[in-house]
Structure formats: C-alpha cells, structure tokens
C-alpha cells in the first residue's frame, strides 16, 4: 500500500502540490488526471524522491520513505517512467535496459559495486533485457543508440526500463504521449497485463480520456495542486470539475 | 514586472571592509589598504569582464583569454614606445593622447584577433566544454609562441605615462595615481556592459542561443554573427585589460595572460560564471582580500583567494549571482 499524507510542495509562493492525502492499494490502477500544470508530475516527483516535500509524508507498506534518496526508494519498490523522455542517449537500447535489470540485482542480492567481474559474463542480465525488448517490439533495434531512435520508440523504451525494475508500484507519466495509434496499444497491453497480476499498484497520468476510461479502476483529479475528486471512473468523469476545468465541455456548450 | 533585485551580495564588499577595519587597528592603514584593494579589484574586473561575458553569453570556457591579455599588453609596449615623447611628457593631456590610442589600438587589434580565434578555434566546439578547454589551450600555446616570434621572449618594460605615475594623498593615505585611472576605466566598462545586456534584446538572444541554437535560428536570427560579435567584444575587453594590467605591473612577459588565468577563474566563479555584476563583486572582493590578508596574515595571503571562493560557494554554490541552471 502506497500512501501520501498531506504531501505539499511550494516553489516560492506557488503551491504546486497542496496537502494531498491518498492511498493506493495493490491490484488497482489509479488514473491521475487534471489540467496542465495541475501538479501531477510534481506529485510523482515527490513520491519517487526527485523533489523534497515541503510538508507531508510518503510511505510504502507502512514504511516511511521520507528522507530517502530516489535510488533508495527504487530499491524499496517504487518504479517510475518519466513524462519527458529521460534515457541514456549514447548507450544502445540493449544497454539501457540491461542497466535497469542490473539495478534490481544490486538491490535484491548483493549491494556490492561489483567492480571485478566482467560485465558480459552476466548472461542472465542480457537474457532478461532481451525478453523485455521483445515485449515492446524493440528487439530489432537493440544495438541502435538511443539518441537515434524516433520519439515514439524512445517512449517505449522508457516504459521498458520501468518494467525491468520489477517494482511494486508502477508510475506512468503519460506513457503514450507522442506515440501513434498503432504503437500505443503495445504499451497499453503491457499495462493491462500488469493489472492482471493483482499484486501491483499502478499509477497512471494520462490525458487521453478513452484510455483512462478503459483502464482505470479509480480516478483522482488534481486541480491547482489540490485533490478535488476521487472515485469511480464514470462518476468522476461526470463530475462538474472534470467536465469544466479539464475537458472544457461546458465552455464549448456555452 | 516585479523588481526583485538580489542585494545581499552587494553587502559582501562593505562587510569585508568593516571586518578588516576591526582587525587592522589603524584607520589610515586600513584606508590605504581598502582604496588600493578596490582599485586593484577594478583592474581585475576589467580583465575578467570579457571572460565572464563570453562564458555567460556563449557558454564558451575560453582558456585562451590570456592570449588577448598578453596581446593587448604587448601592443601597448609598441604603441607607447612609438609615442614615448608624449607618454613621458609632463602633461596629462599629452599623456592621454598617447595612452588613449594605445588602449584603442589594443582593443581593436585584440577584437580582430578574437574574430579569427572564434572562426578557427572556437566555432567547431560550441557546446562542448571539454573540447573548448583543449582547443583554446592549443590557441594559448600558439598565441604565446607567436608573441615570442614578434616581440621576443624577453620581459619588456611598460611604464605608465608620467602623469599617472606617483602618488596622491587622501586623508593621509597614499594612493597611486594609476589606480585612480584604472577605477575610471573600470566604471566605464561596467556601465557599458550592464546597459547593453539589460536594455537590449542582444543579451536575451545570446542566452537563448546558447541553450538551443537551432531554435534561435528557427526564429530567424543569425546567431553566428552575433556570436562573432560577442567574442570580438570579449577579446577587445581582454586586450584593454591587458594594457591596464601591463601598466600596473610595469612590465610584460609572454606568460602574462597565463599568470592571471587562475585568478580570473576564481573571480568569475565567485561572481557566478557569466554575471557581469557578479564578476565586479568577485573582483573587488579578491582585490580587498589580497590586501587585507597580505597585511594581517601574509602567510595565508597565498590561499586567501581559494578560501574566499570556498566561503562564497558554501553560501551560494553557484556563485553570488548564478546566471542559469546550465
């Protein structure tokens, strides 16, 4: 169970996330929606430790994560894909994924830096990375450097890195933005599979309402940093806040 | 627009001076040290201004800055040598008639050299700090050697004109006349830079160009010309600084630029890498610190700059006026 209590951050006078308290249970997929600048990405940053909260706490399975570095939180079971693609641009696709696989090993088995074995001897890492690449249809380009991938493929790789970490909590920040309608389903399928495994907690920031409608078990709405709605998808989508501030429906009707 | 000027760094200079007053004991000694330190700081500012300009606007770490300093200083030996009658005459007007052309010629020539330097040395490495360091160090070596070819390897004397040598007294404190002249030049340089950068679009344009050159070009600006212009100005300032520094030292050697490199880096780090105002504060602090520590704790004087820098960085890890998050 991932839980935030009164999570708040201020940038100067601007309160980007304002006392958000929320719990996310394993086996559910929660969609986080809200207008641009509502604080969704910032909320993620607070949970995964990229930003330090001005107030409030984050805990996972009852254990407080506050004060931990991002890497420690990753080892504790948080996994995160970024909104703006954020990879290792001059390494190959395969190396990118292998690095993420290796990170899980460091966490689970030995914490050593492992500076006296030969990288290519670790066959298991490569095998696992290959498997992941196959899942996202990128096997064909495994030796390309990431910088030369088209935008859409980079987005997919971003997701692959998250999968490689095998976390308890998956946080997706607009995973299909900039991805075309033929490719997006690959990612969405992956998310569906995760859902089937009833032990994972999934958080999804997404602007495409059809996707949200289909996947989400629950929707929370952020507006100006505040949690303004929380509930069943149908109910939340129908609520006036979402209709007006987010979907802009009433404006068009008026 | 909200005017939220960050005034705290401005207090550093008087703050340092006040602390020193407590320890110095004698007021006239303190006054001498302070005035000399501030003036020295102004000279340092003049040589550092071009470097911080080029770094702040173009994100180019120019290890070759020293070459322009040396070049300016050497040109001044030639020009002043050629007009030695006027330079040694007993009239301020005549002295200026020799000195001003020397300053202008040094600036123009250093600026022109800067254009070449930009074209052949810097242009291929925009955006790559490491290669900038290497290639500009290559430029320094070439420049120093060419100076030796033209002017010879020996030390050359460079004396300030008659009216600027000697001392005046103020409240009992001796002040070298030359330092007063340097302060005047420094103020002109600072005012000119501050005006251009804050009141015109040029400053914006270049800062943007450093971040995303392609985008600036896509907006229709010829960033290349602008870069050349800035580099020329930065080099010209170095040339000017070289003359001022040479006259202060009263002699020039081919390594004159390399000798001040570390000092300049410290100044622009304190200032926040790229901020003109910051560089001024940094230079004044360094100038004062050198004199105070030289008087109070000469053993430590050697490291006073480093200590100053570390102190400032502990307070503001990006220097007193951080320019950007680059």
């Amino acid at each position, binding site marked *: 169970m991932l839980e935030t209590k009164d999570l708040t951050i201020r940038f100067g006078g601007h309160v980007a996330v304002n006392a958000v308290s929320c719990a996310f249970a394993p086996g559910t997929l929660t969609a986080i929606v809200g207008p641009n600048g509502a604080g969704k990405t910032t909320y993620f940053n607070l949970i995964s430790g990229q930003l330090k909260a001005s107030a409030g706490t984050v805990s996972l399975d009852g254990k407080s994560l506050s004060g931990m570095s991002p890497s420690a939180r990753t080892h504790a079971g948080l996994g995160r894909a970024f909104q703006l693609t954020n990879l290792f641009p001059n390494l190959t696709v395969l190396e990118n994924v292998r690095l993420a696989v290796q990170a899980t090993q460091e966490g689970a088995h030995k914490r050593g830096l492992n*500076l006296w*074995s030969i990288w*290519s001897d670790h066959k298991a890492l490569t095998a696992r990375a290959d498997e992941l690449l196959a899942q996202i249809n990128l096997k064909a380009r495994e030796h390309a450097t990431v910088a030369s991938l088209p935008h859409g493929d980079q987005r997919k790789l971003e997701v692959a890195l998250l999968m490689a*970490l095998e976390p308890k909590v998956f946080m997706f920040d607009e995973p299909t933005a900039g991805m075309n309608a033929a490719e997006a389903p690959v990612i969405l399928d992956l998310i569906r599979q995760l859902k089937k495994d009833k032990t994972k907690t999934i958080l999804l920031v997404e602007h495409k309402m059809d996707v949200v409608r289909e996947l989400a078990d629950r929707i929370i709405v952020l507006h100006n940093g505040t949690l303004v709605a929380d509930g069943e998808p149908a109910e939340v989508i129908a609520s006036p806040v979402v209709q007006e501030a987010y979907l802009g429906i009433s404006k068009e009707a008026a | 627009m909200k005017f939220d000027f960050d005034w705290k760094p401005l207090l550093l200079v008087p703050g340092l001076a006040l602390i020193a007053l407590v320890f110095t004991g004698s007021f006239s000694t303190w006054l001498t040290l302070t005035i000399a330190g501030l003036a020295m700081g102004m000279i340092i500012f003049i040589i550092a201004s071009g470097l911080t300009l080029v770094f702040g606007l173009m994100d180019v*770490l120019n290890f070759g800055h020293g070459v322009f300093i040396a070049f300016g200083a050497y040109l001044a030996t030639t020009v002043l040598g050629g007009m030695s009658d006027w330079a040694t005459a007993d009239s301020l007007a005549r002295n200026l008639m020799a000195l001003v052309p020397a300053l202008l010629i040094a600036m123009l020539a250093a600026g022109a050299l800067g254009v070449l330097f930009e074209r052949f040395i810097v242009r291929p490495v925009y955006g790559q700090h490491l290669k900038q360091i290497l290639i500009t160090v290559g430029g320094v070596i070439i420049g120093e050697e060419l100076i030796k070819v033209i002017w010879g390897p020996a030390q050359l004397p460079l004396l300030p004109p008659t009216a600027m040598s000697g001392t005046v007294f103020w409240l009992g404190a001796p002040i070298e006349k030359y330092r007063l002249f340097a302060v005047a030049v420094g103020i002109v340089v600072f005012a000119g830079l501050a005006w251009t950068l804050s009141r015109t679009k040029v400053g914006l344009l270049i800062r943007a160009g450093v971040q995303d050159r392609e985008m600036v070009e896509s907006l229709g600006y010829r960033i290349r010309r602008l870069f050349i212009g800035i580099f020329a100005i930065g080099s010209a300032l170095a040339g000017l600084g070289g003359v001022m520094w040479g006259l202060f030292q009263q002699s020039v050697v081919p390594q004159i630029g390399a000798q001040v490199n570390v000092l300049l880096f410290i100044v622009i780090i304190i200032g926040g890498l790229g901020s003109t105002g910051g560089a001024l504060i940094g230079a004044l602090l360094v100038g004062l610190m050198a004199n105070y520590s030289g008087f109070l704790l000469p053993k430590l004087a050697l490291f006073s700059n480093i200590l100053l820098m570390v102190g400032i960085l502990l307070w503001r890890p990006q220097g007193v006026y951080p320019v950007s998050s680059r």
Partner: protein
Amino acid sequence: MLKRLLSDDTPRSRVLAALLIAVVLGLAFAPFIFPGVKALSVAAKVLVFIVLVASFDLLLGYTGIVSFAHTMFFGIGAYGIAISATRLGAGWEAMAVGLGASLAVSLVLSFAVGLFSLRVRAIFFAMITLAVASAFQTLASQLSDFTGGEDGLTFKLPELISPSFEFSEEPFLGVSLDGRLLCYYMLFVAAVVLVLALLRIVNSPFGRVLQAIRENEFRAEAIGYRVVVYRTTAAVLSALFATLAGAMLAIWLRYNGPDTSLSFEIMVDVLLIVVIGGMGTVYGSVVGATLFVVAQSYLQDLLKLGSAAASDLPWLSVLLSPDRWLLWVGVLYVLSVYYFPTGVVGRLRTRASR
C-alpha cells in the same frame, strides 16, 4: 584466455589491434630496438603516461567528471617516493613506505574531491579543481624543507635499479644489462598490470553504471543506483592509479619537483591524450600516450630538419625553428580536436563497424 585478460573488451578493429600489438611489442623490446638513453627515457615516459592517462580516462571518459586536479595525485605519488627516499635512504622499505603513504594521502584527498564533485555543477567543479591544483602546486613549492621547493628533490634508489649496477660485463644484443634496464622492465610490468586492471574495472558492471551516470545522472539515480557511491568510488580509484603512475615516474627519474609532476601543462597534455586517443576507451590511452609522448619528444629534432630545409624562406624558417616547437604542439592540439572528435580509437572502431 586473451579475451578474458582484456576483460572481453577487444579492440574491435583490425587496425587498432595491429596498432596495439605494435605499441606493446615496441615497448617490450624498446631497449633492444631503439638503443640509446634518450629512446629508453621516452619509452619509460610513455609507460608512465599510459597509466596516468588511463586513470584519468576512468574519471573523464567513463564517469564524466572533468577535473584538473588529477596531476595532484600524480604528484603525490611522485613526492611519496621522492620524500621517503630522501629521508629514509635508498632502500626498498623506503620505497614501500613512500608508496603506502602517498596512496593513503591520495585516498583521503580524492574522497573529499569526489564528494565535492557532487555538490557543484560540472563546469564549476572543473574550474575549482583548477584553482585547487594550482594552490597545491604552490604549497608543494612553499614547503621547501620537505619537498625541496622549486628545485625539487634528487634522490637515490636501491642499487639494483640504478644505472650504475651491472648484471654482467658483457652487453646482451648490444645492450648493457644494468640497473636502468631492470628498472625499465619493472615499469613495463607495472604498466601492463595496471592497464589490465583498469580495463577490468571499466568493463565490470560497475563500469557500466559509471557510463550510465555520465550519460544521465538523474536517471541513473532514479533506476536505483546510488550515484554518490559510484562517483566517489570512481574518483578514488582513478586517483589511486594516478598515484601509482606518479610513483613510476619518480622511480624512473630519481628526481621530482613541482614542474615535473604537478604542473598544469601535464594536466593539459593528459587531457589532450585522452581526447586524441578516444575518451572512454582504455585503449585510447595506450595509443594516445604513445603517439603524443613520442611526437613531443622528437618534435624539436624534426623541426630542426624542417627549418634547415626551409632556410631560404625566412618567415617559414622562423616558424619552423626548433625554438618554436611549442607552436606546433599548439597546432597539434587544435588539429586533433578538429580531426579526431571521437579519438583515434573511436575513429578506427567506426570504420571497422561499417
């Protein structure tokens, strides 16, 4: 076998492999192929620089830390040997003590430097290390009771590795078997071992993480690597290797002074070699150091020929005069940045992969 020795990081280009073999054989048989004291000195300097540059590459090429304080550790190694040999006399114990002490000093200092590198922006860090290194150099010349000041220290080492020691009266293949020769082979073995060790480190899982940190520190932290630990470890390792290189230098020269091991000039040379050779490839240091040191050592002789040939063109012969050899070093700097953006190794590998 060979592949494992090279930690599975093969040259991946025939030309490069040939080049490396040539360098290694050349160095291994240098005393016999290139007779003379000068040639041997050059070869020894190549060995020292290979280790020094490779250690710097661990920091710069693999971790992305630009530091100008690397010669500081080089100097510490050299001063360690120099000071202990001066104080404790010409024994093996003195060398061991000096080496141990300098490694300890480097460890502590590099740990601090490594931690500090995390606090400030990369380019800031570069300039701060520049200031620190220059202060360290001044400090070394100030503590003249200890370091010999500007003049440096000349000292004696165990008889066995001194030129005056003769193993046999008879020269072998025209080369006299003396302590100098033994000393050279000592350095050779040390260099081979150290380079292979570095190769192992950069090709370990640890090495890959360093690369990831270089590429995108933020993301490396996000997928669970403790960037602080990795960066500091890399900084410390690289400093220790540099210290060893410094010790090698002192052992060979039996002299050390601030200009010899601490100067900014050496730092820049090292930087250039890394770039010429190819950043992030240990092989680059081998190729780069050899090319550069040899070029630097014989450039003046070459220019002598050149200026004699150009004697009827006065302006050209002024520029080609051996006095102006540094001018050409400068040109070499500029050109190598122009034409070897990825270094010799990078170039050869791209060519081979086509």
